């Protein structure tokens, strides 16, 4: 069995906790509760016959006056950067986080999740936004913590990246 720590990062309210809850407990709540500090969950995955115990660090949202402490990322094997597909401005926050992570921790495997894809009418991601993200050469998934769309697949894809 392999233990891997991954961190979920992104602006406040993008759905980090909801994605984790959907992945770990198959649950979704409409009620928004902002995360303080960090909450840690675990889930065992079978990746090509290898048991991977994923330790998921659900870290509070990045804000103008409350930056994420990069000490949370110590020992992380990978990370998930979450963007709210209805708020393109959260892409800028993702850029800022990644810049800080690259400076403080270095390059670790990352995937982008464009979350809230169930909100089709409010969806506001342009081709230009996508092009900006594609520059990182990291996998990008559109997800919905509400419907579960691509949630399991994206976490599995990251775990796969970590053991390959």
């Amino acid at each position, binding site marked *: 069995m392999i*233990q891997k*720590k991954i961190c979920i990062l992104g602006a*406040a*309210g993008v759905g980090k906790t909801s994605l984790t809850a959907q992945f770990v407990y198959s649950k979704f709540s409409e009620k*928004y*509760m*902002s995360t*303080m*500090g*960090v*909450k*840690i969950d*675990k889930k065992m995955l079978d990746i090509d016959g290898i048991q991977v115990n994923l*330790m998921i660090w659900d870290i*509070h*949202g990045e*804000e103008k006056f409350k930056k994420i*402490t990069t*000490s*949370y990322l*110590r*020992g*992380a*094997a990978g990370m998930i950067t979450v963007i709210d597909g*209805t*708020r393109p*401005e959260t892409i800028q926050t993702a850029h800022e986080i990644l810049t800080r992570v690259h400076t403080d921790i270095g390059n670790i495997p990352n995937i982008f999740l464009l979350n809230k894809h169930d909100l089709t009418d*409010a969806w*506001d991601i342009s081709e230009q936004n996508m092009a900006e993200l594609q520059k990182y050469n990291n996998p990008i998934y559109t997800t919905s913590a509400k419907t579960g769309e691509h949630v399991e697949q994206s976490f599995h894809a990251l775990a796969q990246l970590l053991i390959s």
Partner: protein
Amino acid sequence: MNHLPTTLFQYLANHSIQQLEPAWLKLEKHSDIIIDMGGTWQHYSPKIPQTGQSATTIFDVLLGMLPIHESFELPQVQLKNEQYTDIFAIQDNGCDWLLFCDVTQNTLQLQQYQQVSNDLILLKAQMKQTLHRYIGHEVVARIEQGEMLLDAAGERKNISTLFVDIRGFTPFNERHDAQIVMQTLNDYMNCMLPPIMQHHGMIDKIMGDGVMAVFGVLPSQHHSSLDALQTAKQMIQAVHQLNQQRLNQGLEQLGIGVGIASGEAVLGVLGSHERRTFTAIGRHVNLAARLESNARVGEILIDEATHQALAKPISFTPVTLTLKGIGQTDIFSQTLPCTSNQGKL
């Protein structure tokens, strides 16, 4: 701190430490093996650490963090539900330390403020998106920068106003299910709205199958009349393409007619205290509406002011029409292909 008498310092220190319910581990230097421990461990873990054990096996939160290469802090770690702990990793001479402090009370208080702040961020984003959809990104940006006022008194400007509407939509509406009508309308709106944005127009209102747009409010390199005319041509071209697709799918074609007039208008907020809308008011606005209602499928009707501002293009033919509420008016007409010959209304 020098001015604080020892008794008071001691009192404050004890008081603070008591609240934090600290627990600590002394680790072998450059290792995660526990060599000593103390404090209220039952507060932090069901497993009480023992000397000789690996700290990582008890607290998997420390996975990948030990041995301690440099001191660090992990604030507000939720070890149990609704219980928050600050973890300090401290380097020392000959050993390392891990200090756990309970910060639940403080964190839960901060959580209340955080919640309100995050709710406001989400609400603001939602409101901004709604505003963008109703009056466009450029208008919102100008309002935010103070370049434009949403003022009931209004602002006088020379603008061009465009009205467009689907010909024969009322009978189409009567013949089809509301859901098909809605889908058809959305398809046509996708032809009519993007050209307005592209040519720096502002959508004033959408009225069923009709749209009113104003040009000259947002900055543009061209005269408002030229932007309005280019928009009209692009709309007809887009509808023509849509009609070809609909024809191939065996669906009915719909045509549009456009009216454009130019002149002075007052731009401002109209409505009651509870419900308001941003709009343009002026004589030429009514004229543009009348021109649109007289335009046939694929026809663009423009008033004399627009024709003059466009330097009298020869592609337009002069026409005299009697317009309801206005009377006999000299206008100009141009017709572009909008529907194919088969299957139109």
